[in-house]
C-alpha cells in the first residue's frame, strides 16, 4: 500500500498523477525548482519540497535531491512521470535501495531496453519481428547479395561502423545491388577505415504504431491496444490516436501479442509501450519492433479514453504489489480518441519555442473533451523546460466524429499572451491526408510542410472587439459600472 507519493516531475503529468492519488486517498508530495515555485503542480500537491535552481540538472534530474526530498517529507513511493529520470535505471535502483517504491519497471528491465542494439537482439530472440537486416560475417559480394535477398527490397546497404548517411545506399532491386555494394564499401573504407557493410530492409513511408502494455509482479501482462503516432514533426509526436486507421483486427491482435511477448521477455512490470514501425495497410501490413519506452507516455490519455481505464491508478496498484486490475478479455477499444499536443511554439518561425507569461487561459469545456494541463492564467512558460502547454484529447463514436470534436474544441481554446501551435493543429486535422488516415511519419516534414504557415486573422472583427473591450474597461474605471467585468481588472487569485 502506498501512503504518500512523491511525484518527481513537473507540469501536466505531475498534476495528472496527483489527481489519481487524490482519488485513491494517497497523499502527494510535489518537488519544484526555483522557476516552478508558483507552478500549478506545486499547489496541486499536499506537500511541496524545493529541489534547487531552475536548471534541470540541479533540480528534476538530481537523484540525490529527490531521495532527500522523499526522506524529509516521509514519502514511501516515487512516481517519475515521463522525461527527466523516468527511464533512468540508476534512479530506479537508488529508489529501491532507499526502501522506496518506484512506480515503474524494475531497473533491470529499464536497462535491458535502454540499449537499442541489445533490445533488438532480445526482441529477436523472443520472436518479436524486427526490421530485417544483418552484418554478414562473410563480407564477400556473394554473401552480401545473399543477405540482401534475406532482408528484401527496397533495402539499405550501409557502413556497419558509421552513421550520418556515409556509405549508405538505397537499393530498389537486384540490378542495383552490385554497384551499391562496391560504392558503399569504398565510401565506408575511406570514411571509417572499415569497409564492413550492413544490409537492412528500408521501411518506406512507415507509420508509428505503438502498443500500451501493463504487467504486474505476478507474471501477468496485458496489452491495451495501439496508439497511432504517425503525425510527427522531426520525430516529435504532434497528434496521436486510437484505434489506428491502418490496422485490421488480425494485425492488431498480432501486434498486441508481440508486445506482451516483449514485456514478458525482459521481466517487465508496470506500464510500458512497445513501439513498432508499420509498413503497408490492411492484411498486407507488416510491423517491426522499434523500441520499448519503459514509462508512462505523454499520450496515455488516448488509451484511457478508448479503454475506459485509469493507467496511473493501475500503475500505483501494480507498484504496490497488487495483481493487474483487468484481464485481457475485459479490455476493449470503444470509439475513437485523438490527442493534440499544444505547444508554446511558433510554426511560422520554424516552430521556435516561445517563452513568456500566459495572460489568458481558457480551455474548452465540451462533452468528450479532456484537457491535461500544467498551466493556468498567470503561469510562466520558461526556457528551462519543455514548452508543452496542454494536451487536448477528444473521444467520440467514430474517427470522423473525434476529428470534428477535436477541431471544435481547439478552435475555442484561447491561450493568450504567447504564440501556440493551435492553428497548426487545426490545419493538420483539416488536411486531406489526415482525414483519410493516410499519414506517415515523414508527412509533416515533407508533403505537409506547407501546413506550418500562419493563416490570416479576421482583422476587422478583432479590431471591433478590442475597441469594444477598451470602452468597457475605461468605463469600468469611471463612476458608471461596466456592462461586463474586464477579466484583467478582476485579478483575484492571479499571480502577477
Amino acid at each position, binding site marked *: 500500500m502506498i501512503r504518500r507519493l512523491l511525484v518527481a516531475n513537473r507540469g501536466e503529468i505531475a498534476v495528472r498523477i496527483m489527481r489519481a492519488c487524490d482519488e485513491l486517498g494517497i497523499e502527494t508530495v510535489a518537488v519544484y525548482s526555483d522557476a516552478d515555485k508558483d507552478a500549478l503542480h506545486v499547489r496541486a500537491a499536499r506537500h511541496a519540497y524545493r529541489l534547487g535552481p531552475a536548471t534541470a540538472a540541479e533540480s528534476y534530474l538530481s537523484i540525490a535531491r529527490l531521495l532527500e526530498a522523499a526522506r524529509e517529507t516521509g514519502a514511501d513511493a516515487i512516481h517519475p512521470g515521463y522525461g527527466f529520470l523516468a527511464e533512468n535505471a540508476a534512479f530506479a535502483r537508488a529508489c529501491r535501495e532507499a526502501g522506496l517504491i518506484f512506480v515503474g519497471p524494475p531497473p533491470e528491465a529499464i536497462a535491458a531496453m535502454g540499449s537499442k542494439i541489445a533490445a533488438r537482439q532480445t526482441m529477436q530472440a523472443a520472436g518479436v519481428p524486427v526490421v530485417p537486416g544483418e552484418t554478414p560475417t562473410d563480407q564477400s559480394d556473394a554473401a552480401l547479395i545473399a543477405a540482401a535477398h534475406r532482408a528484401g527490397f527496397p533495402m539499405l546497404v550501409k557502413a556497419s561502423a558509421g552513421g550520418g548517411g556515409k556509405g549508405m545506399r538505397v537499393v530498389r532491386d537486384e540490378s542495383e545491388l552490385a554497384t551499391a555494394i562496391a560504392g558503399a564499401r569504398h565510401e565506408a573504407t575511406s570514411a571509417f577505415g572499415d569497409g564492413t557493410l550492413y544490409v537492412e530492409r528500408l521501411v518506406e513511408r512507415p507509420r508509428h504504431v505503438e502498443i500500451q502494455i501493463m504487467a504486474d509482479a505476478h507474471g501477468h501482462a496485458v496489452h491495451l491496444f495501439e496508439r497511432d503516432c504517425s503525425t510527427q514533426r522531426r520525430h516529435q509526436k504532434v497528434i496521436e490516436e486510437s484505434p489506428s486507421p491502418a490496422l485490421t483486427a488480425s494485425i492488431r491482435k498480432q501486434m498486441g501479442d508481440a508486445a506482451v511477448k516483449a514485456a514478458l521477455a525482459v521481466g517487465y512490470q508496470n506500464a510500458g509501450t512497445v513501439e513498432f514501425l508499420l509498413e503497408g495497410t490492411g492484411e498486407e501490413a507488416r510491423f517491426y519492433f522499434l523500441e520499448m519506452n519503459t514509462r508512462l507516455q505523454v499520450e496515455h490519455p488516448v488509451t484511457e479514453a478508448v479503454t475506459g481505464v485509469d493507467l496511473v491508478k493501475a500503475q500505483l496498484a501494480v507498484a504496490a504489489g497488487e495483481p493487474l486490475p483487468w484481464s485481457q478479455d475485459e479490455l476493449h477499444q470503444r470509439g475513437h480518441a485523438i490527442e493534440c499536443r499544444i505547444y508554446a511554439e511558433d510554426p511560422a518561425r520554424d516552430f*521556435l519555442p516561445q517563452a513568456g507569461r500566459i*495572460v489568458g487561459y481558457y480551455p474548452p469545456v465540451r462533452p468528450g473533451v479532456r484537457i491535461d494541463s500544467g498551466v493556468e492564467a498567470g503561469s510562466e512558460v*520558461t*526556457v528551462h523546460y519543455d514548452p508543452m502547454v496542454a494536451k487536448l484529447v477528444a473521444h467520440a463514436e467514430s474517427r470522423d466524429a473525434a476529428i470534428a470534436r477535436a477541431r471544435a474544441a481547439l478552435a475555442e481554446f484561447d491561450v493568450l499572451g504567447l504564440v501556440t501551435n493551435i*492553428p497548426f493543429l487545426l490545419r493538420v486535422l483539416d488536411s486531406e491526408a489526415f482525414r483519410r488516415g493516410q499519414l506517415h511519419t515523414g508527412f509533416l516534414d515533407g508533403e505537409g510542410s506547407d501546413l506550418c504557415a500562419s493563416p490570416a486573422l479576421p482583422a476587422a472583427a478583432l479590431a471591433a472587439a478590442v*475597441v*469594444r473591450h477598451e470602452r468597457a*474597461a475605461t468605463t469600468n474605471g469611471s463612476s458608471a459600472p*461596466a456592462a461586463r467585468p474586464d477579466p484583467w481588472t478582476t485579478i483575484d487569485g492571479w499571480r502577477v
Partner: protein
Amino acid sequence: MGGESDMARPGRYTVRDDSTSTAVEILADGRVRVGGDGGGGEPMTVTPLCDGRYAVSDGHVTTHVRVTGPPDARFVSVGGQAARLEVEPEGVAPRRKPRAGAGETSAPMPATVIDIAVEIGQHVEAGAVLLKLEAMKMELPIRAPRDGTVSAIRCRIGELVQPGVPLVELA
C-alpha cells in the same frame, strides 16, 4: 444600467498590430465601424459575452473573439489563434512608452545571460558584442546599437532576463 448608455457614446480609436494601424469608430447606435472616416466596411454589432468574449457580427457572419491583457497590450484570440494589439483612444497621448531605445540592448525573449563581454567605462563601437544570452539552446549575441561608453550593466551572468529591459546602458 448607467454603463450601457456610455457604451454607445461615439468615439474614435486607433488599433495597431506590428505592421498596421487601423482607425475604428464607435457609432452613436453602439455599433463599431472598422476602417473609419466613412471608408470602412459595414458597421459591426459587438455583443459582450462572459470572460472577455465578444460576438462580432457583420450582419452575415458572427465571429467569437476573446480579449484580455493589460491596457497597453491587449491580447486577442480567435479560432485558437492569438495576436497582440494596442488600442489608443483618439486625442489621448499614447499610454505606451515608445519602444525605441528600450529594446536596443534588451533580450528578444526571456533568456539566460551566459557572458558579459564589456566593463563599465569601456568604449564600444556600434556592432560590438556587449553580452551573450542563451535561450532555447541558442546563443544570442546582444550588440551595441551605436558607438558609446558603457555606463551601466544591468544583469549578471546566470541571470534569467526578460525582454524589454535594457541590459547594458551606453552613454
